[in-house]
């Protein structure tokens, strides 16, 4: 299976990964490893995973995404999912995968705003 290269960009304290291709199981696992590795390297406060271009999402990838969020939380990072398509959202809910504990936002812009809010609140709480 092809290795997909999903660029993970750093913007200020945040990481932004935009998934542009359909993810198969192996590629999704690679993506998870890459995100976590990057969080470790950059000590990012937040990660945005943008799924605007994804029109199919299966249960495995759906679960993996909530796993990434849970794992990132352990590393002190907040994950925000943005741009989920309506059809994908319906499918996820019907599969019973409601991504509990994952923050979501309509688009990248709102996602960054949400992430700022959350990380600022966290900073206040820690101080």
């Amino acid at each position, binding site marked *: 299976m092809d290795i997909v290269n999903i660029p993970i960009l750093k913007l200020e304290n945040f990481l932004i990964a935009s998934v542009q291709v359909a993810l198969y199981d192996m590629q999704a696992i690679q993506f998870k490893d890459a995100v976590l590795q990057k969080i470790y390297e950059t000590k990012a406060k937040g990660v945005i995973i943008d799924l605007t271009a994804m029109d199919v999402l299966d249960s495995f990838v759906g679960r993996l995404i909530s796993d990434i969020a849970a794992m990132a939380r352990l590393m002190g990072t907040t994950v925000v*999912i943005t741009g*989920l*398509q*309506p059809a994908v*959202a*319906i499918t996820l809910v019907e599969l019973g995968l409601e991504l509990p504990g994952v923050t979501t*936002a*309509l688009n990248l812009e709102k*996602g960054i705003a949400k992430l700022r809010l959350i990380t600022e609140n966290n900073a206040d709480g820690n101080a």
Partner: protein
Amino acid sequence: MTSYYQMFKQHEEVIVDRVINALQTQIPTYGSMPRDDVRKRVIAGLDPYARDLDNDKPQAFPDYWRQTSYVRAQQGIPIGAFLEVLLVSTDIMIKSLRTAYADSPADQINVIEKGHQITTAAIAAVYEGFQQHKDEIISSQTYALAEVSSPIVPVYEGVLVLPLIGSIDSMRAGQIMESLLESINTYSADVVILDITGVPVIDTGVANYLLQAARAARLLGSTVVLVGIGAEIAQTIVQLGIDLTGIITRANLQSGIEYALDLQGLAIRPR
């Protein structure tokens, strides 16, 4: 041996005239129509019939009637009226051909059998054409009803109101869920207020759909607020044991909008 079609062609003038006379005397709409117009229609109708007499299976005539019946149904002509036209004209057609084959009983029987087969197939086709038109009406009305009954009102930047009117079945609930999620995307709405003031009854299926819609909306990054639950609906929801804990509820549209603005750090204040 000449084919039935050739036989028909030989007697065409006479048969067409007889059919025109019969139609004009028996059917009022044809009586008031110019004779030339009737003639055109009769020829257009009898030609495929005569062709089908030579075919193994009736094809041309039923096809002709399927289309005609569809068009007539669109014009609002009752099915009985054009069925009568079909019966009158085929009857004369058969009788005339029988006379034409006066010296050949085998052909006579053949013509009657074939004719019967063709007429029956045509009646079925008439019904099909008619039904097709009715189906189209029904589906367009269903569509129109669905459009009318779930408008989406953007009341403020990032705030949508979806007033639901009338009883909701699972099909409508599914449509509502889809249009809700689509409009969250198009308006990039942070909050959607579902107003069920105009919904008389709610059952477990519908409640489940609303819950699913709320959860799916959350995945998109939006919040659903359910408002306008009346006393009766509140009782039903509790008695049915429907768990709405995942959904934020407010008494009425007003407090729903207040809540929505509050979520965005806004408020309505006197100047």
